[in-house]
């Protein structure tokens, strides 16, 4: 199959499931940040009448963490997962962690490479919890 991307030079094609979802997020420091659990698009009402093509939604953010992962699982387990994710958040905010699309530096075969280090991203709650509650209390953790 010939690649459509090659025929129209400026436009590149991508598929959400095949190329973006469940890819590794990598900080600029090379650290693993998480997985692309879901995608967020700008709300676009379906085109009506003559205004065709004008209303294509835009990809605005990559979502990650338990609150984005739960809906991916779907069903009862997904709901359950989302509920746990919500309880882990101190502010009770039901919105998942967003990584605005402007932070994407490169999409490579390794994953989605971001323009900021892992420490500056919002989805470190589980990391921080595991670190402060358990790992840092054991001698030799290198903290």
């Amino acid at each position, binding site marked *: 199959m010939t690649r459509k991307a090659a025929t129209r030079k400026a436009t590149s094609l991508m598929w959400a499931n095949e190329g973006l979802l469940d890819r590794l997020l990598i900080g600029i420091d090379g650290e*693993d940040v998480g997985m692309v659990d879901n995608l967020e698009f700008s709300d676009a009402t379906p085109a009506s009448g003559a205004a065709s093509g004008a209303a294509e939604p835009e990809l605005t953010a990559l979502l990650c963490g338990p609150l984005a992962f739960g809906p991916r*699982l779907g069903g009862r387990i997904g709901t359950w997962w989302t509920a746990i994710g919500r309880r882990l958040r101190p502010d009770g905010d039901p919105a998942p962690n967003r990584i605005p699309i402007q932070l994407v530096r490169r999409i490579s075969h390794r994953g989605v490479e971001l323009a900021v280090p892992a420490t500056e991203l919002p989805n470190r709650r589980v990391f921080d919890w595991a670190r402060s509650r358990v790992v840092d209390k054991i001698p030799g953790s290198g903290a």
Partner: protein
Amino acid sequence: MKKFLQLGLGVVTAVGGFVDIGNLVTSGITGARFGASLTWAIIIGTIGMTVYAEMAGRVSAVGGRTVFHAVRERLGVRTALVNMIASGLLNLLTLAAELGGVALVLQLVTGVNYLIWVPIVAAVMWLAIWRLPFTWLENLFGVLGLALIVFVVALFKLPTDWHGLWQQTWHPRVPNGEGHPTYFFYAVSLFGACLVPYQVVFFSSGGREEKWSPGSVTEMRMNSLIGFPLGGLLSIAIMFAAVPVLQPRGVDVAHLGQVALPVTQALGVTGLAIALLGFFAATFAAGAECALSTGYLISQYFGWPWGKMHRPAAAPQFHLVCLAAVIAATGFILTTIDPVTVTLVSVVLGAAAVPLTYFPVLIVANDRDYMGDRVNRRLSNTLGTLFLVVMLVTSLATLPLLFITKAGL
């Protein structure tokens, strides 16, 4: 020269890493009960393991993908989650078996009941995971595991009927007095002992730990294509050594000590000491690898930072999972459940779960976007597909066999 040493060390490590409690127990039992008539199961299992380890290593070195990144990417969140849970539980079972194995060796040496040793072994194992650098963990015990070569030596000292072994290997027949289900149950167990899923997870993640690059493919191939087949040969040697010693006496191997009996008969106490050192190193290393693999696979599924290349504080979830795995497995084996039974069940269930981990590896190894011109060639694909079919058939047959034979009794 240094390069040669490094390559040699890699191969030695792969040999030592291949043999674990599963191989020791299944080879011992089958040698005593079925002679050499099940050698084919080890041969097929070893070829499968080698083909898939090479693939997983290549995907890790060239594509930068570890097994569970590939699993999630290709199977989707839900299937991959089921896969992760199944592989994780299986790892716990295997880890429990290895812990029991190390403790049994210590019981043989000291005479102190293995249950006393289990928590001590677990604590030391966790400490090794926590503190020892990755290459140490891998190489030290890999080299010590080579002590198992004593079984090959013993084969030459014992009145081994080489012609008979050869005959049974290439013209296998179910021995008199054994039913077909039992025969095939033990075939599956040998197969599963060679193909345990944690080894592929460990091999590919270990590649990232050692910072493999596309230039490391040769080194990786040496490790997998030479090391693993030699490991398979060791398993066969353990099986063959049991034939002249245990089979005539009708010994039903139910304890790790009986596996070492042929070596004792051939080489005396020195031989026994070397064999036990080999048992210890192989099971201890395998236990640590198992615990690490559990950390690898869960962290990779969720995209958490993982690995011994980080300080524990920089990969806290990973270390938390490793710690939890060791604790859970310790608790399980402390229920006084028989470690040999746990081993048998773990390798047989492992054989059933193997396609879950191996299939995504086969797929990603064919993706030119990741692999460039290092994609699978026809040989890898033919063998890989063939083994996948064999593994699927095995995995479908596993549970019925397990119930019909009541775990091989």
